[in-house]
């Protein structure tokens, strides 16, 4: 029985339409995962060398132990975003005469087989062999590593429960925010040292089996909590997404001034709010507002006069990330109701203009939200203004143009992380205009005159694009209309 289910799972993933259609993307994804894992191994191997350089005189084991809690906080965050819930397959199995507990066991086991489960071991394993084993013996190293692995796996089960219970709810976001504050607050602000508080547990793990036994018990407990939760909620209504209608019913009155395009912008906004994938994109936009923190205050990018050319790229990202991410799947968002737009007079035109209107509004909000960066210097305001204008004037059309190359259908209710549905070669190529475009305008002026002349050129180009908005958007509208039959039939999955 168990093997039948496993075989079904395997067939399901191999035969899914997206797998067959985007084999290339899947290979690329696999490659990417291997690459990331190899980075983790590399970091693990070099950990000792790095610590030698950074803190030559300190006890490295103690140092690692005091940092472990931050690793787990980070793990909590990336698991929240990446880890997939295994309930999607439930629907097709529930009515069969297979015990619920059996199905849930299978789903949970399957969720455990994931690269995420070995990251902790890959990271601290080499260090344990190189350093811990020397001082505490093989037994100590083994117990230390397995205690850490068990903690990581506890997080796995905990996250399965947590995401199912709280994802997309305000509580979930609040907890995530709390973890961020806890992590940052304790180290940056020096409120308290979280690392020191948790350190003894891992110190003790090297000399005594007690922490190991304790962690094992906690992991088993968390597995059973998770298992109990899933079994008792194994009904379609419980596991399907319950949405809070009040929260998602807001429409933006401002758009109604723009006629049919405005109405469709409003409809598109509802689409974004009411689907998981698009919602994640929106949340990521908020996170990307912090992107500047990495670069703007970094001494590596401080220059004598003017500013680092890299900031243009950062500015494009901060003010345009939503447009770039959402726009690269331009029509795929509407794949399940494309015929609706085709069937209205002027529907496609209004759809494209409505989307542009929405991109413009969100970019404007991002620009306004990025104003506090003036704390690092007034030129950041100018950079953001110029890149904002360039984004909404020019880049918007470039991205759409590339995104319209063979758009693919996709399911909007799957999560966004590591979900490459709807992605084809065109979506990878979008990076090129995004990276190169702004510099084509900026660099000549910045090299001939100075950086601010470059910014001015960038801004003026953007304004020109805005003035020619109608004509520029016509290019993409005409492209959709010319390819309407192909797009419509591929969205109906007839190909």
């Amino acid at each position, binding site marked *: 029985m168990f093997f039948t289910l496993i075989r079904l799972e395997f067939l399901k993933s191999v035969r899914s339409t997206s797998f067959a259609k985007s084999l290339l993307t899947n290979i690329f994804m696999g490659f990417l995962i291997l690459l990331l894992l190899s980075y983790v191994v590399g970091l693990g191997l070099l950990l000792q060398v790095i610590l030698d350089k950074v803190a030559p005189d300190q006890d490295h084991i103690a140092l690692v132990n005091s940092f472990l809690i931050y690793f787990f906080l980070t793990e909590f965050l990336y698991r929240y975003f990446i880890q997939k819930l295994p309930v999607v397959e439930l629907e097709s199995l529930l009515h069969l005469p297979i015990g619920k507990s059996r199905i849930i066991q299978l789903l949970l086991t399957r969720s455990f087989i994931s690269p995420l489960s070995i990251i902790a071991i890959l990271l601290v394993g080499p260090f344990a062999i190189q350093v811990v084993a020397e001082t505490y013996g093989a037994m100590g190293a083994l117990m230390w590593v397995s205690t850490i692995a068990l903690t990581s796996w506890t997080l796995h089960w905990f996250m399965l429960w947590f995401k199912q219970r709280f994802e997309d709810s305000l509580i979930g976001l609040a907890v995530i925010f709390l973890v961020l504050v806890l992590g940052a607050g304790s180290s940056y602000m020096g409120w308290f040292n979280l690392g020191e508080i948790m350190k003894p547990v891992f110190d003790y793990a090297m000399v005594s089996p007690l922490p190991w036994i304790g962690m094992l018990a906690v992991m088993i407990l968390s597995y059973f909590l998770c298992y109990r939760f899933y079994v008792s909620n194994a009904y379609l209504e419980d596991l399907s997404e319950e949405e809070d*209608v009040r929260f998602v019913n807001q429409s933006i009155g401002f758009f109604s001034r723009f*006629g*049919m395009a405005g*109405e*469709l912008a*409003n*409809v598109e906004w*509802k*689409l974004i709010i*009411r*689907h998981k994938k698009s919602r994640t994109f929106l949340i990521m936009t908020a996170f990307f507002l912090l992107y500047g923190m990495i670069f703007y205050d970094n001494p590596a990018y401080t220059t004598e006069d003017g500013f680092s050319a890299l900031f243009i790229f950062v500015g494009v990202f901060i003010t345009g990330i939503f447009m770039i991410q959402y726009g690269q799947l331009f029509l795929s968002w509407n794949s*399940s*109701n*494309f*015929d*609706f737009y*085709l*069937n*209205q*007079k*002027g*529907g496609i035109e*209004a759809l494209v203009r409505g989307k542009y209107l929405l991109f413009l509004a969100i970019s404007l909000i991002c620009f306004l939200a990025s104003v506090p960066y003036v704390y690092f210097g007034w030129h950041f305001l100018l950079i953001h203004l110029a890149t904002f204008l360039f984004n909404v004037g020019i880049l918007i059309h470039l991205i759409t143009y590339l995104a319209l190359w063979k758009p693919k259908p996709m399911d*909007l209710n799957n999560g966004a992380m590591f979900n490459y549905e709807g992605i084809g070669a065109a979506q990878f190529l979008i990076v090129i205009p995004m990276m190169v475009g702004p510099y084509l305008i900026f660099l000549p002026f910045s090299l001939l005159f100075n950086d601010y002349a470059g910014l001015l050129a960038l801004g003026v180009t953007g304004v020109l694009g805005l003035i020619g908005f109608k004509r520029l958007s016509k290019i993409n509208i005409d492209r959709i209309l010319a390819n*309407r*039959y192909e797009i*419509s*039939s591929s*969205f*109906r999955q007839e190909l």
Partner: protein
Amino acid sequence: MIQISQLKKQYKEAVVLDVPALEISRGECFGLVGNNGAGKTTLFRIILDLVRASAGSVTINGEDVSKSEEWKARTGAYLDEHMLLAYLTADEYFETLRVIYGLSAEDLRLHLDKFTEFFNDEVLGKKKYIRDLSKGNLKKVGIAAALMGDPEAVLLDEPFENLDPSSQIRLKKLILREKENSRVTFLISSHDLNHVTEICERIVLLEKGKVIRDLRERSEMMAELEAYFTG
């Protein structure tokens, strides 16, 4: 009103639709019947310019459907869920259509009033997205949407499918009333021979993409169709 000439659709070698000439006049209720794969939906999609014809053309009031968009304002259709915005509630969806068709709030209310009985209190005023409605209610939303904006022609694909018996009867009444009052041209495909023969004065039978019967005589329709389908 709708003219089809030399229309052909083929996928590689396979010809799925081949209609040399067909004319549907204003105010006519045109029924389309045929077994699965006969080409009913393909014909509707070509009329609505959702699928490209391999050869030939469709004109609505003299306009070639693939060359202009003007006809869309006067043509309503509901073929499948792809024509709905399933992530809106029914009310929001009608509101969106109201803006698109440029109607007033009063127009919309008057229009929806016609469907009060048909909706049976299960569609409007519900805090439920269209995608969560039952198949029957989904169909009701689509049909009410297709009739919005005073269309001259309305295309419905299997309108009776998934509806409960009372709704089927109400829908028939609705169609007859619209035809009577506003001379709406209806194109209806259906597997339910009783219903189509009852409301349509003309029935075309498709087989493997070809028109093999064009029945206009009410009294003989049912017998002819039954003879054909029982084989």
